[in-house]
């Protein structure tokens, strides 16, 4: 396992985690770069590709949450103005996708990261609990509450359109 292999295999995952959490392509790139720089420093401590991916998910989550906390009350980009980075394919309704991303961005930090890890990375609550160092029941509770809130808001939005 070389640094170049780990970077090549995980750069899209790291950038996307930061982007879906921060909703700011510039900030996401900054966070992702910082994470890979730290990975380079710690590279000798990693035990293999799986450990590297776990480490990257954990470091990105932590670094993105720290970034939001440090940014604090600084002005952020309006959610509608965000330029979406390209993706290989965009299945589903683009407008619905956009609305869902906007709603996820309104969630508090921890539940938002739980949602991104669950639906971007398709991780199980147990895996998310290890990455975010929180009890599994807390992860499940964040998921349930966030899903209920998103469903309600999406139904309301669709009702307004109809």
């Amino acid at each position, binding site marked *: 396992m070389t640094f170049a292999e780990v970077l090549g295999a995980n750069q899209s995952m790291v950038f996307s985690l930061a982007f879906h959490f921060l909703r700011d392509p510039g900030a996401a*790139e900054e966070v*992702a*770069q910082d994470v890979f720089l730290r990975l380079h420093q710690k590279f000798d401590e990693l035990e293999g590709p799986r450990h590297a991916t776990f480490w990257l998910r954990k470091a990105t989550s932590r670094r993105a949450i720290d970034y939001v906390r440090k940014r604090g009350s600084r002005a952020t980009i309006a959610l509608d103005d965000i330029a979406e980075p*390209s993706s290989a394919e*965009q299945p589903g309704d683009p407008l*619905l996708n956009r609305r*869902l991303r906007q709603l996820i961005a309104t969630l508090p930090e921890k539940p938002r990261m739980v949602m991104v890890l669950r*639906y*971007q990375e398709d991780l199980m609550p147990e895996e998310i609990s290890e990455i975010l160092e929180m009890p599994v029941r807390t992860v499940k509770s964040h998921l349930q509450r966030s899903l209920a809130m998103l469903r309600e808001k999406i139904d309301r939005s669709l009702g307004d359109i109809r």
Partner: protein
Amino acid sequence: MEDFERQLRNALARKQEPPTFEAKVYAAVAAQRSGRGIFWRWATEGAAVVVIASGFWMGYQHENQQRAAGEAAKARLEVALRITVTELSKIQKTVRTSTEDE
């Protein structure tokens, strides 16, 4: 619920990183390496300066101590000479008095 979760997966599908991302990471890694090199060079040069300055300072202190010891010895010698001269004058005066009496 499954349908809604599928919509969420679509909405949060992985995005492509910017095309320059990889190059920027390698540049940051290189900058970090050279930064670390600069740090060690500064640290080594700094340590050398401290060692040389300490050597000069110790030499200066030693010279000062020797000069002070020399000054003290000179002062003691002057006092001793003054006492001797006084004593000799007294003896000379006594001898002269006794010679005149004879």
